[in-house]
């Protein structure tokens, strides 16, 4: 419980300042968040209903920007790319992360060392990851050239130059970056599982496979939830990786909502449409994050 509520009825000014001090200390943060998070959200929301182009302008146009947005082909591409990218990214990261966590959970020698190797890409920026993978995927010098150099002269791996396949290269690089982190989350989950139950099942003669399928994995539900929320949130925000890896190309083949927003706002001078696309991104993230935060904060009590 709070300490500050011990009221002093005959308080002097100094006393009252002392009583209010904690709230005074917190107030700059409250002000900053009110302005720079919620105020800014309202501002962008407002802009999305205006005819802003190069600069914010305040001519009200109603739902016009949203109607236009959904007619733009690049936005269509961006949304369907996000679905492809998001689904594959989340699914592969979870599968790989779970596999690695289970492998590492078998009383491995040098576990800490191996874990360190699996996790380090997370310390790198998406720009570095993007730059690195850009060249491996480049048919001229990367994997294709290397394998051809080994003798398979008709080996082809030019997804990054291929309009149909380029979005999958984003998945490849993003999975490399994040799967180790998902492994760490699952490993933490595995370590928290009741070992009594495991022993009982083993005595009953359950195979390792059955043990995992029936007992362990169902108990990892909270870890799955957390992984899903984190990954979905990262997928929706993905910007740097696309910029460094493909620049959104070839053409608009790897456009995502985040890159779409940036280019419409800052290079195509369609700020109203850019703001509308940002609002949609916010709504999507809020739909995932708010219920999650809600349950987490309520559990705390």
């Amino acid at each position: 419980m709070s300490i500050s509520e011990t009221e002093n009825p005959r308080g002097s000014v100094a006393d009252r300042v002392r009583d209010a001090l904690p709230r005074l200390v917190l107030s700059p943060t409250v002000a900053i968040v009110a302005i720079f998070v919620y105020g800014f959200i309202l501002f962008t929301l407002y802009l999305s209903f205006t005819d802003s182009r190069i600069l914010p302008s305040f001519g009200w146009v109603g739902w016009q920007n949203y109607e236009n947005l959904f007619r733009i082909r690049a936005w269509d591409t961006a949304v369907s790319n996000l679905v492809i990218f998001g689904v594959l990214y989340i699914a592969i990261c979870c599968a790989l992360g779970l596999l690695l966590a289970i492998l590492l959970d078998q009383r491995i020698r040098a576990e800490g060392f191996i874990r360190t190797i699996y996790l380090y890409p997370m310390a790198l920026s998406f720009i570095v990851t993007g730059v690195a993978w850009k060249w491996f995927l480049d048919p001229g010098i990367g994997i294709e050239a290397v394998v051809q150099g080994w003798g398979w002269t008709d080996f082809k791996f030019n997804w990054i130059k291929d309009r149909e396949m380029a979005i999958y290269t984003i998945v490849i690089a993003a999975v490399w970056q994040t799967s180790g982190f998902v492994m760490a989350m699952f490993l933490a989950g595995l370590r928290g599982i009741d070992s009594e139950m495991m022993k009982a099942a083993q005595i009953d003669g359950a195979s390792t496979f059955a043990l995992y399928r029936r007992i362990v994995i169902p108990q990892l539900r909270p870890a799955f939830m957390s992984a899903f929320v984190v990954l979905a949130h990262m997928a929706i925000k993905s910007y740097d990786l696309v910029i460094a890896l493909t620049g959104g190309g070839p053409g608009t083949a790897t456009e995502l909502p985040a890159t779409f927003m940036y280019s419409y706002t800052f290079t195509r001078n369609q700020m109203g449409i850019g703001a509308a696309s940002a609002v949609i991104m916010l709504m999507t993230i809020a739909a995932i994050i708010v219920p999650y935060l809600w349950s987490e904060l309520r559990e705390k009590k």
Partner: protein
Amino acid sequence: MATATKSRSFSAARFVLYALLALFCIYYLLPLYVMLVNSLKPLSEITAGGMMALPQDWTIAPWLSAWSTAQVGVEATGLRPYFLNSIIMVVPAVALSTLVGALNGYVLTKWTFRGATVVFGLLLFGCFIPFQMVLIPMARMLGLMGLAGSVTGLIFVHFVYGIGFSTLYFRNYYAAFPTELVRAAQIDGAGFFRIFWRILLPSSGPIAVVCIIWQFTNIWNDFLFGASFSDFSSQPMTVALNNLVQSSTGVKEYNVHFAGAIMAALPTLLVYIVAGRYFVRGLMAGSVKG
């Protein structure tokens, strides 16, 4: 909770297990290996198609070029000025957001008031918004404040959006700190700040490390804010690296690009190697638990 393997198939199963683990080690290390090896080769060896091979002719010329002579944008300054920009940006932004986070966490756990949970919830949601939502008003705000296109502006932006996470860390940490100690100190006549400096802060080492690492990695690795709010003189390392790699003039100097990429990765990589345990804890706390 490891499972005991049946002794009969012990060695074979173990062999497969370790082989798989080693295979994944290669998968995660390969890009780093390729970057490192190719940053120490002359360009001709790379274009001749030996990306995996060790250099025949070892050279540090690409590193020197990436650091001080490569063309980034208009001028051939190398990445050095941008590396310095990143350092000048990251140190105050981390220090400020951590300090404010510590104070906030202290208030939110030891001096709670009605509505504190709501304040915290709103703060927390602010951590997760897509920053695309604040780019336009922030650009305008920085202009009004006279901070557009400056490193100071970037410091400010990172400070503002760093508060949420740092508060989250300290709040969760201080929640477990015995309130009786605070109360006893108060009875002894210690005030708000004295309790903070003398009692809470001295025991905050572990969480401060986690928070500093988290903020450092996030701010150092940021690209969106850097690309949106900096000009040529104030670009951070990530933006400069991207410019170096994307610049379309002349021959693509892959070896220089690889050297530059490692330079951009080095500070956070170093932190990870030195304080990996805290890095992981930061990741988990920052993204898993509210």
